């Protein structure tokens, strides 16, 4: 398994590759005024296009401001258009996650490759 880390301000995204599965774990707080430089390229690249499964885990993400919420939505949409199976994990214990991902699941329901999983038992910072 390989392991890379992207850090910007209070946000950390960890990328783990296990065979042809890529997992991105989002952690911390994302409250910038503009997109974290290099994060899109960290997620959408040759490796993610070649992967058979992408897992985006947002459960440790505590807060996202509205500007970055748009970045998150666009990133998820771009990932869903790669043609790869995408598994999104979130927790409805975090209020912004609960509302955002429930709404996105409906908005992106046409994307057959996208699966949303609510891990209700997870609370950020508890681990």
């Amino acid at each position, binding site marked *: 398994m390989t392991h890379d880390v992207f850090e910007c301000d209070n946000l950390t995204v960890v990328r783990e590759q296990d065979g042809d599965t890529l997992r991105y774990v989002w952690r911390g707080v994302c*409250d910038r*005024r503009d997109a974290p430089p290099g994060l899109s390229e960290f997620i959408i690249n040759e490796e993610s296009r070649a992967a058979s499964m992408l897992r985006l885990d947002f459960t440790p993400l505590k*807060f996202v*401001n*509205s*500007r970055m*919420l*748009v970045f998150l*939505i*666009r990133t998820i*949409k771009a990932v869903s258009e790669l043609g790869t199976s995408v598994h999104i994990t979130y927790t409805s214990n975090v*209020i*912004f996650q609960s*509302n*955002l991902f*429930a*709404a*996105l699941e*409906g*908005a*992106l329901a046409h994307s057959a490759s996208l699966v949303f999983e609510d891990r209700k038992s997870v609370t950020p910072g508890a681990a």
Partner: protein
Amino acid sequence: MSDPHLSMTFELRGPRGRDWSHVAKLRGAAEALARSLELPAEVLTAIAVAVEELAENLIKYHHWEGQGDPCARLTMGVVHECAELVIASYSQLQPDRGHLEHLGSVFKSIEVHGPREAYTRRISELAAGEDGGQLAQLGLYRIAVEGGFTLALEHAAGADITITATLPLPT
């Protein structure tokens, strides 16, 4: 805000008022007041969302070069013997940028569809790329849905504007 039991007001003055780092400072100060009142964790989360979004709007839309009131203000107070938390932002809008029309459409959507459905519709627009720009324009929906606040909009003479968010407190 009517007769607050306890309140604090922040004033942002140009040119240093227009500093995005003020948003986190205002949020932190509001959370500190909420903690001192021993408000529950879910209310702290609601306050964080409301103050963050209202402070962003103040900095973004206040007419910093205008001839009127040079201050943008954000007040947080507890009224009706601690039964309600009220956060209000007062600003003079920049002219000719369509903010008032936008605010009117957001309040209309919340009134017609309810906060959750209005929020879901906005997320769908953003996911479909129908937003027409880089602005999220999600703040008021988030205050209503994530924070559970009731919102009110007052537009006085000229370009002065007040947005008030009210949250009943647990008894």
